[in-house]
Structures are given as C-alpha cells and as structure tokens.
C-alpha cells in the first residue's frame, strides 16, 4: 500500500522521462499493431471471401484441353459448375490497329458461381458479351481501353474475331485469385473463342471448371471421389482454402517485413525507454535517497518505481494499440483501390495481444536495469550519483529477468513469423547490430575521454563537446545505438532499393530482348522469322514450348515430397518445357553432361540447379512430368545455373528431343530489335500473324518498375518509423541534458563566450555523434543490403558508395540540425535569470 502511495506522489512530482517512455513505446507498439492488424484484416477478407476469390468451392484447371463430356458429367454429379477458358492474346483496336497483350477469359451463363461482376454501365455479363449481328460483345478493364484508345461502343479484334466493347469491368470477384497477369482482363462469351482462330494445336490455353458443391456434398468427399476416379489427375485441383496462394505469400512477406521493421522501431525505442527510465529515476534520486535515509526498504522503493513505470508503460502501450488498430482504416481509405482485396475492417484480439506482448517484453528488457539500479544503490551514494555513478552490482534476479525477457522477445519474434528462417536471421542480425552499436557507442565515449586528456589548448569548443560526450551520465551510448540502428536500416534498405532499380532500369534492358512472341505454330516459324528480320529484328531465338506438370520427384508424388520453399513454385502449376538436342549458347552446366546429338535412350532432362537443390535431386535422379495427360519419367542428365535476370530464352526444364516426340507443341521466340525499329517489328509480325501474342519487355519492366516503386515507398516509410524512434531517443537525450546545457551556456557567457563559441561546441558534439553513428551504420547497412540481396533476392550485391554517403550525409545533417534545434533554448538563455535562480 505504501508503495502505491509513494508511486502516486512520485508521478505527481515531475514529468522527466515521461514523454520518452510513452512515445517510444507508443511508436514501436503502434507500428507492430498496425502491421499485424492490417494483416489480420486482409487475411480475414481472403478467408471470408475465399469462395468468391476462387470462383467456386473448388477449381479444376486443365492445360490445352477442355474437360471431356464424361468428365463434365462426372463433375455435374457433385453440384453446379461453370466452365471458362483463359489465354493471353493480342487485342487490337479495329480502327487504328493499336494492339496490346490482354488476359482473355471466356465465361458461360453460370459464371460467376459466387460473388458478383460489376460492370459499367450496369448490365448483366450475358448482355455485355452476347453476339449481336456479326459482332460478339466484350467487357474489359479500363486499362485495356486506355492502352488501345478505345471507348465504349468501339470495336476491337482478337485473332480473327471482331468484338464490340460494351462495358468496363469494375469488379471481377475471382480476379485476385487468378494467376500472374501481364495485361488487362478481357471477358467474352464462351462461344466467342472459336471464331478467334486462336485455338491451335499447342496454343497455350487453360480450361477452368469451377464447382459449387450441391447441398450435402462435402469438399473432402468430392476430392476423394476425384482421386478415386481420375488417377493420375488430368487437372490441377484447388479448393477455396488455396484460393489466393500468391496473395497469401505476398501478405506473409509484407507482414513479416513490416513487423520486423516495427520490431526494429521497438528495439530502437527500447533505448529510449531505457534512457527515459534513467531520466525518470534520476529525477527522483534525491527523494529515493531521502526515503532510504528515512528507513524505506529497497523492496518498497522498487515497488513504487515499478508501479510508476508500469502506469506510464500502460499508457504508451494503450496509445500504441489504439493508433495501430486504426491503421487498416487509414490504409483502406488511402490505398484501398490499389489493394487486390477489400480488407474486412474490425478490431481483433490476437494482433493486439501479440503487439502488447512485444511491448511488455521490450519494457522488461530495457527498463529493468535502471529501475533495479536505483533501488539497489545505497542512500548516500545516490546523492553523489550524477558526479560519480555507483558501480552497482545487481543480484542474479534482475539479470535473469532481462536475459529471459530478451530471449522471450527473440523467441516470440521467430514464433509469430511466417518465415522462421528469415526471423532467425533477423534476431541474429539484430543482436549483432545491437552489439556493434553498443561497442561503437562505448568506443566514442572512450575516445572522447582519451582525446579530452590531450592538450587541446585553444580548442575550447571541441573540448566542451568531448566532455559532453564522456561526462558521467552522458547518453552518448544510447544515442549512437538508437540512431545507428535507424540509420543502418535506412542505408541497408536504400541500397536494396537502388540495386533493384538499377537491375530494372539499367542491367536488364542492356541485355534483355525487346519482345517475347508466344504461340508460334510450327508452320508459322519461317514466316515469323522472315517478317521480323525484314522489319529490323537483329537476333531471333526460337524454342519449342509445351506446358507440363511435375507429378513425381524421385518417384514420390509431389504432394508428399519434401520441397524447399524456394522451389515450391515449380510444382504449384504447370511449367513451360522445351526440348533441345544441344545445350543453349549461354548454358552454364554445373553438373552432369548434355546428351549426345540424336540421343534415343530413356528421356532425359537438364534442370535448373536451384530447383534441383530445392527438390533435393541430383544427376541420375528421376522427375516425372505430366504432359497432356501422359506421364513422362525423366532422368536428370545435367544441372544448369540460369541467369534469369537476362530475360533471355531460358527454361527450368530442357528435355531431350525424344521425350516429347509427337506432342502438339508451339514455339516461343525472343527477339532483339534496335529501339527505333521496335514498333515496326511488332506491327509487321501482328499484321502477318495475328494469332501470335507479343509481350513487350519494356511494358513488363514498367510493370515491375511500378512494383519496385511501391516497395521503395514502403521501405522509406518503414525506415522512417525506425528513424523516428531514433529521433525520439535523440530528442530525449537532448531534453535530459537541457538543464545542464543551459547552466553551461550561462556560465560560459558569464566567462565571456559569444554565442558563436557555444554554437561551435554544440555542432562539434552532434557532428561527432552523427558521424560515429553514421560510420557504424554504413557498415551494418551494407551488411543488411548484402544479406537481403544475395540471400533473399538471390541477386549480386554491388557496393554503391553514393547512396551510402548520401544517406549518411543526410542522417548526420539531420542529427546536427536536431541537436541545434534542441539546444537553441540553451544558446538563447539569458544569464541573469538562471544565475538568480541558482
């Protein structure tokens, strides 16, 4: 009870340190809450709307062929179904001939089984796509209209068919669950595909059957019946729980990134919590000493301090949770139209509980030491503490508590992360960075102490700065640590962003072809080559392509095989396969040998070495691929290290020519063209061969550019939060030293110092702080960038001094300016009132 009374009186007694504790905790917990709440809102949307996002209770996807009548009849036995087909096509403005790649989808009368298609002007999908006169109707995303310069009522052609554009698609319920798209959506009736003339042997077309199970039919029973009847399955099966795997993966990664950045802010803020608690305790030291002299026990004092701190921490936590919970609303209000799904807004307990746990663990980790210290120091020593800090020996209790809380913080970080491996690296990296910056801070203090012992006659400003850095109770170590962590995150993430941008803007365009042409029929190949060359193409590489699906790895069905995370994408759907009797020109064979010309033994495959590693296979192992319903066992003959960033003609799977003998293949081609001839080549090929689709690399890069720009924005915002936490710690340090600074400034003025002399001392102090933090941050930031680029993004890491230097100059300037702004009051202080006050 007495502790509560003392705590209450203590809180009344002064606000020193309050702001820092509350603000740091609020910022860190707020950032984590925001990240987890947004994740929760989006994940609930993905889960609640899963059937609409998939388009049914289940989806069966076939490549090249539509389901047979028997298969359709079988499926009908389980409920309603909707059939559609998807393919990449060239849509062309019938008026001026402008063309663009589009994602064509045919729909039947039953579509959509779940959710609703919104069209503008409002009409039914059947109306919009119906055939009237000679023309079929079509609905398209606004982007298609923009690219082709079309308006409603205009005509466009796809292959040999003519369409009249009747509606703009405002909302397509299963669009977010669709595969990666390179162009805008174009919806047409199922009867309109055949007239396009695009259905050729080997044309890449996906046929989808969407199922709405009849009442009483369960998904498990349906799946069981499918497996029992069709073995091997001719289709790829997805149910609503897998409606949006790529979105979920993206969400996993984004949340992990944002949570880790939020956690970094909390750790940076942790220094602020420690400094704030120190300031909070320091302000109360005289009273604590007096209470000890009056007979208060250590436990009573400790309890009163802990109660005071806990009340402040609770305020910071509560504010962080409230502000963070509001983030989904803010994001939906500002970026809602750019998100693939509409978040289901609401407050969930779990994200708040997780964020609060992080906050509480951070409090225990960072505040135990200053609280325990104040309680453990003898009364007389407390009064001398500012002059000569007591070397207090803690008992095992506080040490154990801090160690356990730090371990729990690390463990909890790993436990809640979608990517545990990355979280482990974050924890290890964070611990190393913390150690490096703590060491850096200590080094600054030691060097400042040693330097101030040197004769620095005539350098009063420098000596004043040095003495401020190493004086008893200086917050140098905390500031270097917190600012350094924030700056290193900024340097590291900036380097990653710059490297990604360089890859897209300079390195890829330098060697990438101008176009990919798809769906070239074997009998069109010669005409294609001739047309492209005549129009200005300089280098044409063609390859046979057919889609196939991996069904077994080392004779184990893929569903049961152990596959590494990096290679999991290869078994998620069907993959492009090619054949070659000789290795590609830039084949980098790292294991095994290429098969001899005219090889006629058991089918062989040359595999991407990274995929082989993820599959756990090597030379001589077997992989089985399903092509058009036929299972082909392949023996691995060689492994290649592929440079995907070249955007050249590369295949994960290259088969010996005999493996696909007789299969209906089409060809794809990469074409290099001088920039001034690109339009001519595209036009010439499209005119001569309207069924061939073309992907402009510049368009694809522009799309990638937009993604990277978005990532860049997220990176800057995230690093900004961590830097803000660093700035809070700096502000707290400046604020804590304000009384001392004013006293010093007044005294120096009395002794004859002009304001310029004082200004120089402040600049020296903050420049030394900023440069020290910046130098360590440069090193740690480069390490972060190297880790992310080489280990996560599998890119080459190059040292880019300019972004590092620029970031640091900005950081150091900001620190110096903040220091100046913070000490402005001290510089302006008039001596007399302070001397009178003393």
């Amino acid at each position, binding site marked *: 009870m007495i502790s509560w009374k003392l705590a209450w009186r203590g809180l009344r007694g002064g606000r020193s340190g309050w702001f820092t504790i509350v603000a740091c905790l609020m910022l860190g917990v707020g950032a984590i809450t925001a990240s987890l709440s947004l994740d929760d809102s989006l994940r609930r949307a993905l889960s609640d709307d899963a059937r609409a996002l998939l388009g049914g209770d289940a989806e069966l996807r076939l490549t090249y062929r539509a389901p047979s009548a028997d298969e359709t009849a079988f499926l009908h036995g389980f409920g309603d179904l909707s059939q559609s087909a998807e393919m990449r096509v060239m849509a062309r403005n019938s008026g001026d001939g402008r063309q663009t790649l589009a994602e064509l989808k045919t729909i039947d009368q039953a579509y959509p089984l779940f959710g609703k298609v919104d069209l503008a002007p409002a009409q039914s999908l059947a109306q919009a796509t119906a055939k009237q006169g000679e023309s079929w109707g079509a609905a398209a995303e606004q982007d298609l209209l923009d690219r082709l310069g079309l308006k409603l009522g205009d005509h466009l052609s796809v292959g040999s068919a003519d369409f009249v554009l009747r509606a703009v698609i405002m909302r397509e319920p299963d669009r977010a669950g669709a595969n990666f798209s390179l162009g805008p959506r174009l919806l047409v009736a199922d009867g309109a595909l055949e007239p396009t003339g695009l259905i050729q042997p080997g044309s890449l077309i996906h046929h989808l059957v969407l199922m709405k199970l009849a009442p009483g039919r369960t998904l498990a029973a349906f799946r069981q019946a499918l497996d029992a009847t069709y073995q091997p399955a001719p289709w790829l099966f997805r149910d609503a729980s897998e409606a949006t795997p790529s979105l979920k993966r993206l969400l996993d990664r984004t949340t992990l990134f944002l949570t880790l950045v939020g956690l970094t802010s909390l750790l940076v803020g942790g220094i602020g919590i420690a400094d704030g608690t120190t300031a909070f305790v320091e302000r109360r030291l005289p009273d604590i000493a007096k209470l000890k002299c009056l007979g208060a026990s250590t436990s009573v004092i400790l309890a009163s301090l802990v109660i005071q701190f806990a009340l402040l921490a609770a305020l910071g936590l509560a504010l962080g949770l409230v502000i963070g919970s509001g983030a989904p609303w803010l994001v939906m209000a500002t970026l809602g139209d750019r998100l693939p799904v509409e978040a289901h807004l609401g407050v969930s307990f779990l994200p708040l509980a997780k964020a609060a746990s992080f906050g509480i663990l951070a409090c225990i980790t960072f505040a135990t030491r200053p609280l325990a210290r104040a309680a453990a120091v003898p009364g007389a020593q407390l009064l001398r503490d500012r002059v000569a800090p007591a070397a207090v020996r803690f008992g095992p209790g506080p040490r154990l508590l801090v160690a356990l809380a730090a371990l729990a913080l690390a463990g909890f970080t790993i436990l809640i992360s979608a990517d545990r491996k990355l979280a482990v690296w974050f924890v290890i990296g964070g611990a190393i960075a913390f150690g490096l910056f703590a060491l850096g801070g200590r080094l600054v203090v030691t060097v400042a102490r040693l330097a101030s012992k040197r004769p620095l006659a005539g350098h009063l400003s420098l000596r004043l700065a040095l003495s401020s850095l190493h004086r008893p109770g200086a917050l140098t170590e905390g500031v270097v640590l917190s600012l350094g962590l924030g700056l290193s995150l900024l340097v590291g993430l900036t380097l990653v962003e710059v490297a990604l941008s360089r890859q897209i803007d300079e390195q890829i365009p330098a060697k990438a072809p101008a176009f990919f042409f798809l769906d070239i029929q074997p009998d069109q190949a010669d005409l294609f080559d001739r047309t492209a060359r005549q129009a200005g193409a300089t280098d044409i590489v063609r390859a046979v392509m057919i889609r196939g699906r991996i069904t077994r790895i080392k004779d184990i069905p893929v569903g049961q095989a152990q596959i590494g995370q990096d290679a999991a994408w290869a078994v998620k759907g069907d993959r492009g396969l090619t054949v070659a009797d000789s290795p590609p020109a830039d084949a980098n064979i790292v294991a095994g040998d290429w098969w001899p010309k005219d090889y006629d033994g058991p089918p062989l495959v040359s595999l991407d070495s990274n995929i082989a590693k993820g599959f756990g296979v090597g030379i001589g192992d077997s992989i089985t691929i399903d092509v058009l319903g036929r299972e082909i066992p392949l023996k691995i003959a060689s492994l290649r290290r592929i440079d995907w960033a070249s955007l050249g003609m590369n295949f994960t799977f290259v088969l010996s020519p005999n493996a696909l003998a007789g299969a209906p293949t089409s060809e794809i081609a990469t074409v290099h063209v001088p920039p001034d001839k690109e339009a001519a080549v595209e036009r010439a090929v499209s005119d001569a061969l309207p069924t061939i689709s073309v992907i402009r690399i510049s368009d694809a890069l522009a799309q990638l550019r937009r993604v990277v720009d978005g990532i860049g924005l997220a990176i800057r915002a995230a690093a900004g939060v961590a830097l803000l936490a660093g700035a809070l710690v700096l502000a707290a340090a400046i604020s804590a030293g304000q009384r001392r600074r004013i006293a010093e400034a007044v005294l120096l003025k009395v002794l004859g110092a002009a304001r310029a002399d004082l200004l120089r001392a402040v600049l020296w102090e903050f420049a030394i702080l900023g440069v020290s933090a910046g130098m360590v941050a440069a090193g740690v930031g480069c390490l972060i960038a190297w880790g992310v680029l080489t280990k996560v993004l599998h890119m080459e890491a190059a040292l880019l001094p300019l972004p590092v230097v620029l970031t640091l100059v900005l950081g150091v300037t900001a620190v110096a300016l903040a220091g100046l702004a913070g000490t402005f009051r001290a510089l302006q202080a008039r001596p007399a009132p302070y001397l009178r006050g*003393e």
Partner: protein
Amino acid sequence: MTASLVDPSVLLEKVSLTLAGPAGQVNILADIDLSLRAGETLGVVGPSGSGKSSLLMVMAGLERASSGRVKVAGTDFAGLSEDRLARFRREHMGIVFQAFHLMGTLTALENVAIPLELAGREDPLGQAARQLERVGLGHRLGHYPGTLSGGEQQRVALARAFAMRPKILLADEPTGNLDQATGKKIIDLLFELHREEKNSLVLITHDSSLAERCDRVVRIEDGHIHADEPVPA
C-alpha cells in the same frame, strides 16, 4: 569601442532595474548612483532581496539596466550586444559566485583555462596551471569539481576569475556556501590576489565585518543606496 582603464573604474548614474514577475513589474534597483575608483575595494551589504546581486549583474552586463547609465572601464554598456558584452567581460572582469559555478564536466585545470581559451591567449593550460598553483591547488589540476571540497571549488573559481588578470573583480557572496574557517581562508586569498593584481574589487556580502575589510561600504535596502561610507583605516 576600445575599453581603456580610466577613472572611475565603475560608474553607475541613475540606474534603475525593473523586472517583470508573475505578479507584475518589480522594482529591483532605483536611482542608483555609484562610482568606484581603479584599485578601490567596495563592500556591498544589505538584507536578502535588497538588490545586492542585481547590482552586481548590472555591473557585469549580465542584466541590462532599465534606465540610467552603466559605464565600466570607460565603456558605456548602452547599445552593446550580448556577444560584445560577453567579450568585454572576458577582457576586463572576473566574477566569483556563491555557488562556485564550475563546469562539472571539466577538470579544475580546464575550468580555469576557459576564459584564457576564449580570449585566444597563448598556452592557456600552462597559465591556468600557474593560477591554480597560486591558490594552492597545484596538486588538483586533473580533478573534477564533484571530487573537490567546497573550499577547493571556490579556490578554483578564484583562480578562474583572476586568470585573465582582470581590472575589475566582482564577488557575490563568495563565502556563502562555506564554513567560517574555510570562508576566512577564501576571503584572505581574495584580498591577497587583489593586492597583487591591484584591481578594483566589489564584494557583496551579508557579513558586515567582512565588508569592513574593504575601502568603502555601501548599504542597500529595497533597491536604494542607504549609506555609502568609507571604512576607517
């Protein structure tokens, strides 16, 4: 402006000081006329709150007079900027406070060297060391104020005040925080240094017997000079 030593060393004519307080304007000093010859010592006595310390602040240029004229060492303070006043103090004045006002983050040697360094003097640390030896602290050069006794701290303050060999020394209750014996030692030292330097000294004190060691004693009450009398030899 070139400051030169002319008689009188300190001249205050009709000086008033009014400060704004929470309860409104407060008249601290009123119509003060005072002059001090070069080399003269002046004791200023009066009850608490009478305006003694404010008088010293005005003389030091740390407080601007609300009206009247302040002229020190031939320099009129009117219109001087804060920085020019600071430079003036650096060259011509030494000040000692009751609360010592040493910089806790600097050693005794560095504290004494501050005014020398600000003035750009040759070998400031060497000169500072000699000053500290002069006040009997040659063995405490590297000590921080927090590790020195009150008497030692005030000796450091004296060494600092005399470091620039100022022509005017202002001392505001220099023994107020010290016991009687230590206080006496400090005052003896102060007068000894004054005799060696032959500068003008203004000593503010509560202690009439201490003030009577000066050539003249001024008594202040309610911001007015009530008495200004020479001390009989």
